[in-house]
């Protein structure tokens, strides 16, 4: 017993040493910026420059901006409300779209890509080599009235007039989100599906389960952690996304929460309001994040 204590202590120290870089990283690049956002959102406005004066001292914090944001969420002046609803609807649709695309792809890569798995994975990751903005700009050109898509549709006689994809259409925005984020969904799902031992599937078949039953009772439950990780990975950044919308629509009729924040940031005196909106968004997203963390901890404990 006396022999194990120093070893435990040493292991404890090692643990601290290994945690330290991550902790410092989080403190510098997460907590400090977050504090800056809080200070800005609770700050005041410079009377001459009308720019925000951050309130660094918590005793100076003012809740005016939060009051403003909350008053705009509901009630007669509640013009933020529809944006919130729109954001949630778009994100849900886009996440569903991602799921529909990503699951079969991940399954194919994990089970059926054989020797070409490396190549297929590389192809899935390939879009990351080009910046998100560039890919969206490419879509703008493809979907333009005289773009390739319209020329193909017109050439095939499917439409008489060009489809105005880029004229503030919710479908374009949602599909843009699906396109932009689907790789983030495929990768964790692939990792989860790849981990399922083929022996388990064979066992299910041996025990009389059909293809569908095998999927429903074996594959699906075992892929849940991957699906959840994928959902969180795409849903959170989508909720704050603004330039998919800016590029593919630029119309207020499809504005999302990210666009609202962006509008506020661009106006000198409204950085505080933007900060308050950011914090509301952070809080709102912390809920699914915590649920995810809890469920993954549980599944770790279970296994």
């Amino acid at each position, binding site marked *: 017993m006396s022999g194990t204590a120093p070893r435990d202590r040493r292991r404890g120290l090692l643990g601290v040493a290994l945690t330290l870089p991550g902790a410092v990283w989080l403190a510098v690049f997460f907590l400090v910026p977050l504090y800056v956002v809080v200070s800005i959102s609770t700050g005041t406005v*410079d*009377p001459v420059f*009308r*720019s925000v004066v951050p309130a660094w001292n918590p005793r100076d914090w003012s809740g005016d901006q939060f009051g403003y944001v909350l008053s705009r969420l509901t009630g007669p002046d509640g*013009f933020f409300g529809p944006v919130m609803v729109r954001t949630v609807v778009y994100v849900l649709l886009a996440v569903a779209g991602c799921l529909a695309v990503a699951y079969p792809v991940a399954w194919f890569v994990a089970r059926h890509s054989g020797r070409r798995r490396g190549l297929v994975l590389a192809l899935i990751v390939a879009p990351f080599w080009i910046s998100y903005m560039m890919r969206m700009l490419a879509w703008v050109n493809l979907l333009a009235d005289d773009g390739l898509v319209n020329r193909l549709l017109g050439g095939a006689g499917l439409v008489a007039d060009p489809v*105005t994809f880029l004229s503030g*259409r919710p479908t374009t925005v949602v599909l843009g989100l699906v396109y932009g984020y689907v790789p983030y969904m495929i990768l964790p799902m692939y990792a989860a599906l790849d981990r399922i031992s083929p022996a388990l599937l064979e066992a299910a078949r041996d025990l009389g389960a059909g293809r569908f039953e095998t999927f429903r009772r074996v594959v699906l439950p075992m892929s849940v952690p991957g699906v959840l990780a994928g959902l969180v990975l795409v849903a959170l950044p989508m909720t704050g996304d603004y330039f998919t919308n*800016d590029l593919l629509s630029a119309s207020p009729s499809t504005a999302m929460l990210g666009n609202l924040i962006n509008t506020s940031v661009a*106006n000198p005196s409204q950085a505080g309001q933007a900060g308050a909106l950011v914090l509301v968004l952070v809080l709102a997203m912390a809920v699914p994040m915590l649920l995810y963390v809890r469920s993954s901890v549980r599944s770790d404990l279970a296994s």
Partner: protein
Amino acid sequence: MPADRRPEPNPFVRRGPSRRGVLGLAALTGAGLLAGCARERPTSGLTAGSGGSGSPTLTAASPASPVRWPVLEGNAPIGAGLAPEKDATLQLYNYVDYINPDVIKSFEKKYKDTGVKVVVSTFNDTNESLAKIRAGGSPYDIYFPSYDQIGKLATAGLVRPLQHSYIPNITNVWPQFTDPWYDQGWQYTVPYVTYTTGIGWRSDRVNEDIGARANPYDVFWDPQYAGRLAVLDDYREVISMAILRAGGTDINTGDDAVLAKVREDLAAMAKATRPQVTITDYIAIPEGKLDISQAWSGDMIAAQGYLPKGTDASVLRYWFPADGKGMVNNDLMMILSGGKNPVLAHLFLDHLLDDEVAKENFTFVGYQPPLNSLDPSRLVADGYAPQGLAAATVLPSYFESGYRSLELTPAAEGKWQDTWTRFKAGA
């Protein structure tokens, strides 16, 4: 004050496409919040506390009440007749592509014996630029503001009073800008370019003469153009347009009834035509990606450079009220106190006010300098613009008849921002 008072003006003719659009977007990613964190110089000379009651507010200049801005102690103009700085790097702080590189080269050549080198730093909106100037640290010599920023910069002592003996060319500008109301005594600024706000379109894509409508602004509410038009991403411009359309003339109002009507009208517009809100019209109109847009005159002149091969500039159209009762504006040049080369900075201002230099600059940026020698009635004849863009010419008389965006009172400012956010939220 308006964040995007102006797009970063642009390549005029024969330039690569879309550069500004891309740059603009890249800069969207959080410049604002970062600017908010910059260590900003408090507004010195004032009791600018933490916004408590009794804090000073700025006088708002207007043609009816001209303002002579204070000159803070220790911020005197430089002496006359000083020799230009040797081997200096003159730093310009400007919108992207808002100055012709050739006029910079000609300046360097003109003062070759001083060894001067000119570098241009750029900003995307005045929010960003003001924050950076206040933070200090970057010794910019010359800044290109709109006139609603003078008061802020002068009050904070960030701008240097001019020594006019270095700027004889200042007499080349229109009398409307001589000793202007926004800067009595020409203490801080010289004029740079002028522009109007109207409507731009391509005649081969729109089967009507928008300017012939009883109220051309109605086009933004016309459902037949749904999904094909845009308004400027600038709260002053769009709200002012709605006010003018409804028959108003005060585009600096804080009147609740007027702004309530604006909110209603903008909501109706969003519903009827789902307009894009963007400042890329100068590319999108010539390229045919947008059919109609609210537009700055200079951007439509610059649009000539973005037409696809085989499309003639004669298809471009711009409308501005023929009686001059529309929105007019001008941009300025000033010398910042933080700059290290005040003498060269004065000489550069004089250089840009030279007739030939200013015209050369015009052919690049598309925005018209207010020069006596540049006869507005001859811009089309002289090939600066095709006939269809004749209305994009800025006439001196517009600065008597037109409406100008002045600095809003804080109360009105809040209402305008609220109106704008509501519109942008699509609610």
